[in-house]
């Protein structure tokens, strides 16, 4: 019982955090999501790709050379450097270069690999993890990293609870440091995503007691083991990090410094890249991708991500309790048309609740795809065979949502469904969503850890804190499978459970899955070794500039 209660607490925390992280029904939820709200969401920004993703490391010719200053043009500034309670991508991408976790995400985004640790052992009951630390790792201030620093960092992250990423650590009972190179984690219950959780940036290692400062002081210019160290930040303009001479990976980083310049206008970013003022455009607008691809000396590409955009139907409102209505709507949507209109062809139609970059994603999930005859058949079987009037909320100023809503309006008309598009201020959309005062709205998600549970619990469990992603749906069978998958450590068994969950959730159509969008990036060809994982992280210690 106790376990269950704690588990529930964790789930509630997941939900609470997601409220914070995913903010509204915006299309741009993010690996630390809120950034999307600020930077004008959607198409231009964080976007993941699915099959369309061609993400490959930048042209690998020649041996890396040291030196050079990398300039990245980005849509919006970072917000804060505290890795334990910051949810926004623009901040995360920066502090990940300063502070590193014990494990990190593999390039395919589906697993973890040792980073500041060299490995771990699990006890037979799965409740104790003994982690061995890497030898010779130093903080940028020259102090060696020890197990005491790890204990301090993980405990500090856990302590943020609902106000930060602490919920991620809800399974941790105690952290002990029996000797300088060993850390022992005791869990409250078996928890499959544990190592994935340790790989999250919120569990990055900082010096014990913040090197004698208060947390606030420390995070003004944080210190870590990462390839780069703090230099300066002119808020709203530019943030610069410089090379960490004490970095534990011999010979890295290659760059002398990295500067993120804030250039909110997509066209201005494109021009700065073409003019050689920036070497990387962090968020090329989809509308500028073709132009960038055609520019000689510039590579514009997409990396597979974990971003899903979906249509949420509120089952508290008539007639969405009727599964046939939901299925009819899901079948009426021409996802390819949306991908073409909104992502300029970059991205792909969504078939599942999970995204292609997420472990246990099942590409064989049939889902409900565009099928006019199925849509008509489902409507005929429904409680409202002659159609009905309903509405969809759109965040004002979000052109992506507005376009999708218009396409939707046209596609539902033949079914006799009259769709009213209600444009509301983003704050008002959020309020309406939380209160359940809407018919339909657009939602989205990107993953932060290489484990599906972060999202599935939020999306299908009515006790996940957000009424099953604001659908107010409750399918006991799906909820049961999700709980089983959480506490199963056997990979094959988990795959079986998550495949079943994806299939059942698609049939239930509590939400219509719309599209997967990739991360778009563009860079000058003199940039080498730049790569983005499906969770959005990039490792700048591998990046070098050819002369």
């Amino acid at each position, binding site marked *: 019982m106790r376990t269950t209660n704690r588990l529930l607490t964790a789930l509630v925390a997941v939900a609470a955090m997601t409220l914070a992280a995913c903010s509204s029904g915006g299309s741009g939820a993010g690996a630390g999501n809120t950034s999307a709200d600020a930077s004008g969401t959607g198409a231009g920004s964080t976007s993941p790709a699915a099959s369309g993703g061609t993400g490959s490391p930048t042209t690998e010719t020649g041996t890396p050379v040291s030196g050079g200053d990398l300039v990245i043009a980005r849509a919006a500034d970072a917000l804060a450097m505290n890795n334990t309670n910051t949810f926004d991508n623009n901040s995360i991408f920066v502090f990940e270069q300063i502070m590193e976790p014990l494990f990190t995400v593999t390039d395919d985004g589906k697993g973890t690999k040792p980073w500041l640790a060299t490995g771990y052992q699990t006890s037979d009951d799965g409740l104790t993890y003994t982690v061995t630390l890497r030898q010779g790792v130093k903080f940028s201030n020259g102090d060696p990293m020890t197990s005491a620093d790890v204990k301090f960092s993980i405990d500090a992250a856990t302590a943020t609870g609902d106000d930060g990423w602490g919920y991620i650590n809800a399974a941790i009972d105690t952290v002990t440091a029996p000797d300088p190179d060993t850390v022992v984690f005791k869990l409250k219950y078996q928890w499959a995503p544990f190592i994935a959780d340790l790989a999250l940036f919120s569990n990055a290692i900082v010096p014990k007691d913040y090197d004698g400062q208060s947390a606030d002081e420390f995070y003004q210019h944080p210190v870590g083991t990462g390839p780069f160290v703090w230099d300066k930040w002119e808020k*709203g303009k530019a943030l610069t990090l410089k090379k960490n001479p004490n970095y534990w990976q011999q010979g890295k980083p290659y760059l002398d410094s990295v500067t993120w310049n804030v250039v*909110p*206008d997509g*066209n201005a970013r494109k021009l700065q890249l073409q003019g050689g*003022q920036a070497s990387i455009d962090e968020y090329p607008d989809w509308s500028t991708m073709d132009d960038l691809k055609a520019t000689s000396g510039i590579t514009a590409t997409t990396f597979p991500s974990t971003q899903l955009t979906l249509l949420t139907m509120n089952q508290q409102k008539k007639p969405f309790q009727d599964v046939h209505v939901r299925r009819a709507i899901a079948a009426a949507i021409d996802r390819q048309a949306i991908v073409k209109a909104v992502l300029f062809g970059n991205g792909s139609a969504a078939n599942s609740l999970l995204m292609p970059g997420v472990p246990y994603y099942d590409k064989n999930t049939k889902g409900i795809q565009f099928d006019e005859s199925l849509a008509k058949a489902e409507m005929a079987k429904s409680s409202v065979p002659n159609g009905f009037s309903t509405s969809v909320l759109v965040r004002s100023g979000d052109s992506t949502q507005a376009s999708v809503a218009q396409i939707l309006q046209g596609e539902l008309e033949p079914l006799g469904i009259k769709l009213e598009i209600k444009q509301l201020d983003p*704050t*008002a959309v*959020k309020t309406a969503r939380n209160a359940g005062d809407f018919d339909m709205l657009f939602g989205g998600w990107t993953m932060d850890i290489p484990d599906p549970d972060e999202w599935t619990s939020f999306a299908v469990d009515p006790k996940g804190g957000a009424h099953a992603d604001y659908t107010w749906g409750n399918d006991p069978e799906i909820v049961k499978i999700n709980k089983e998958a959480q506490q199963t450590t056997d990979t094959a068994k988990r795959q079986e459970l998550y495949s079943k969950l994806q299939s059942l959730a698609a049939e239930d159509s509590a939400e219509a899955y719309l599209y997967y969008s990739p991360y778009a990036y563009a860079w000058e060809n003199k940039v080498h070794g730049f790569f983005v994982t499906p969770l959005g992280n990039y490792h700048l210690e591998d990046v070098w500039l050819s002369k």
Partner: protein
Amino acid sequence: MERFRFIPRRLLQAIPVVFGVTVIVFFLIHLLPGDPAQAAMGEHATAAGVAELHEKWGLDKPIWTQYLMFLDRLIHADLGDSLFYRLPVTSLVVDRIPVTLFLVAYSVVLAVAISVPLAALAAVRPGALRDHVVRAVPLVGLGMPQFWVGIMLILLLAVRVKLFPVGNYGNGALEHLWYLFLPSLTLAIAMAPIIIRSLRASMISVLSADFVATARSKGLPRRSVLLRHVLRNSAIPTVTVIGVNLGYLVGGTLVVEKVFGLPGLGGLMVNSIFNRDFPVVQGASLVLALFVVLIGLVTDIIYTILDPRVRFR
């Protein structure tokens, strides 16, 4: 310094204007639907934060008390905190004033540098082909939207031929001159046609004035007549034209700073609108409006320097 006596009076006259500006800025937030504190705190508002702002703004008090409280905060240079940057708005705004000031001044200098020779060229032979060309061609600049002109200049002079940087501000005065050349030229192109037309017209009328004939007849070189006598006397109406158009120029910085990614007031305001960072929008509007008021005053001062006969009451 007798003739500068008008300045204190002008300052007094500016008070109602400034007052009006503060009223508009104050009421901006009340135009938003719902609770102003909720609107100002944005999407991530916490109940405690909203309650605190309620207290600070006195939202339970009558509207005029709220306005007085707003003025009180203004006098103490307290424009609130940016929701996005988590910094005091005052420091954000003050930090960006130099960029916009530099941009506006540079634009005027460029506009004048373009206009004076062209206007003189046209005015000396009114009706000649060159007069028609000078009158017609710059008008194209007036008709083109600034964002487009800016992008074209970037494509031409920064991307195709890498003569100038695409954006940013640079470090130090010399770099500023280089970095801000294209944005200033963009603004100057829009302003020059107006100056040219006004200057040309007044030069033509001054050229036919008696004192010019006198100057010529006493054998002064043509060049000296044109510069010392004609230009100076034609400048007065032109200064008014520039003064009036500076207001539009300040508006133009919003577009140009965005296109060139400049860290100025206009860019800050546009970004803050997109970020829904209400306190910053309020602060930037206030400062930009005061900017325009100040420009009016400076125009008057330049007037009296150019023409000692001008007396303001």
